[in-house]
């Protein structure tokens, strides 16, 4: 259980985290979403007592991290920036961590096996590890103390598709064992597959804290309607806009309508005797929900050049 109350962090004039109050509960994967610079990593560093909050506090299992005597047994964390000595082997790194918390050396071999690092990879100096292997080493460190709370900052960063699936399964399995799992990611689609609940940040502020379905539902449903006749389509568009809907052309004969229900679209078409070939409601994707939530708070907005945000 992670409890944040009024958590605030300023760096000079930048407000990295702004009065964040949220509980992250056990037994589920909580996705921590937000655009670049939203304050996800800063929040995680404050939970670990690495950054001092400007105001408010972060508690793990009811206590500030800095007061924990054997923290690796309570919280496991993978941070975004690597914190491994470049010349030290991954194994030595884990052994040092284990020693500090009285964890037996065989546990190091266990977690190395869990993350799929073989003896050869674990014996290499950390600087010789690929990005993905480095991530696996970081995850191994998080699992070392078998903690009830886990935090992963961008865990799939640098992992191949196999690795991504593995992290997803690992996060789910850990939550399934009743642990608190907080995972930050940019990959909205990834969160849709991994998380049960979402905490969405934008410019340090809490934008959403809800089950994933609710966030998606909040973004509203989309209605797709196909009108074969051009004139009819123009008439229907006018009626829909008058009814407060947003209408966008979608292919040669279809419209994407948001802001009204499918039933309403059907009724409006019926009133005018407009012939329809398709009328379907589509739930918004998490990606669309995310875009809608963070639209106003994107710090480093790219100028659209045709590429999408996948």
């Amino acid at each position, binding site marked *: 259980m992670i409890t944040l109350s009024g958590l605030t962090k300023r760096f000079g004039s930048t407000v990295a985290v702004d009065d964040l109050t949220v509980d992250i509960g056990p037994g589920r994967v909580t996705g921590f979403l937000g655009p670049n610079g939203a304050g996800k990593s800063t929040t995680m560093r404050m939970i670990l007592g690495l950054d001092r909050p400007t105001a408010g506090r972060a508690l793990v299992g009811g206590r500030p991290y800095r007061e924990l005597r054997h923290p690796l*047994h309570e919280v496991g964390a993978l941070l975004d920036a690597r914190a*491994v*000595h470049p010349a030290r082997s991954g194994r030595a790194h884990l052994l040092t961590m284990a020693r*500090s918390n009285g964890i037996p050396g065989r546990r190091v071999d266990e977690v190395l096996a869990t993350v799929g690092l073989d003896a050869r990879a674990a014996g290499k100096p950390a600087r010789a590890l690929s990005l993905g292997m480095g991530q696996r080493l970081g995850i191994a460190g998080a699992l070392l103390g078998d903690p*009830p709370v886990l935090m992963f900052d961008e865990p799939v960063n640098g992992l191949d598709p196999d690795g991504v699936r593995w992290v997803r399964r690992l996060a789910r399995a850990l939550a399934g*064992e009743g642990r608190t799992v907080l995972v930050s990611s940019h990959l909205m689609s990834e969160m849709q597959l991994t998380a049960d609940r979402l905490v969405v940040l934008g410019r340090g502020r809490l934008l959403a804290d809800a089950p994933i379905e609710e966030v998606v539902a909040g973004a509203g449903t989309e209605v797709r309607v196909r009108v074969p006749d051009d004139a009819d389509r123009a008439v229907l568009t006018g009626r829909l806009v008058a009814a407060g809907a947003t209408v966008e052309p979608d292919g040669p004969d279809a419209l994407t309508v948001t802001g009204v229900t499918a039933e309403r679209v059907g009724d409006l078409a019926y009133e005018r005797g407009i012939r329809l070939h398709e009328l379907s409601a589509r739930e918004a994707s998490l990606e669309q929900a995310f875009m809608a939530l963070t639209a106003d708070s994107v710090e480093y907005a790219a100028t659209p050049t045709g590429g999408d945000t996948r």
Partner: protein
Amino acid sequence: MTTTTASTHRPGVTPAHRTDPLAGAVAAEWTRLWSVRSTWWTVLAGVLLMAASAGQLAIYVANGNTDDDPLNDAGVVAVTDVVIDAVGLTQYAVLALGLLAITGEFTTGTIRTTLQCTPSRGRVLLAKALVTGAVTVVLGLLLGAVGVLVAAPVLGRWGTAPAAGTAGDVVAVAVYLALVGVFALGLAAVLRSAVLTLTVLFATLYIVPLSLREPDIAVLDRIADAFPGEAGRHFLTGDTGPYPAAVGLLLLAGWAAAALLAGRAALRRRDA
């Protein structure tokens, strides 16, 4: 990759034979210290510096006694006097050991891992001080012995090495080096940069007291005597002047303790 978590028991109930956190921090620090190559290089540098400067200073004494100029005759000296003079230069290798124990962590980012494992800043610094102190005491004994072994044959008949006095002086050298090593550690925890720390060390151990000596003003002399380098020198040479050797030792220990406290405050206050 098909493995999931290897744990089979309920989370958070890892049974333990949980060790004392300070013991854990010390064990981790010990492993950390010896798994980085710079540690071995500093030890080697210390030994070479000691051998070179003890040898050179011994040659000065022997030459001074045998040349035509009576003014520079030192006569017969204790071998350990030469060794203690050689500490003036050799100590910088030992200081490096103390300050690298923490500046290295900041440059590589491992400080985040260290603080994640041991969140108590005081405990981290205390563990580092204990390990640095223990290692530098042993290194100091080694360096003292190296100095004696190099200086004695060079001095020949111009040097004396009474067993008890020599052993006592070598132990004093080891204690001095351990204290300045810990002083360097505390300072480095405040300053975070190796270069900056080394500069400040050079100033407090050498430059500032030296420049305060220049004018013959008693007040400045008194201030100079309070500096860690001077306190250490009075302790090592065992001279009775401005204060007894024991006071020099206490002063130096006080400086080391103050540096550690300042380092702890800095670690607590600042983001890692």
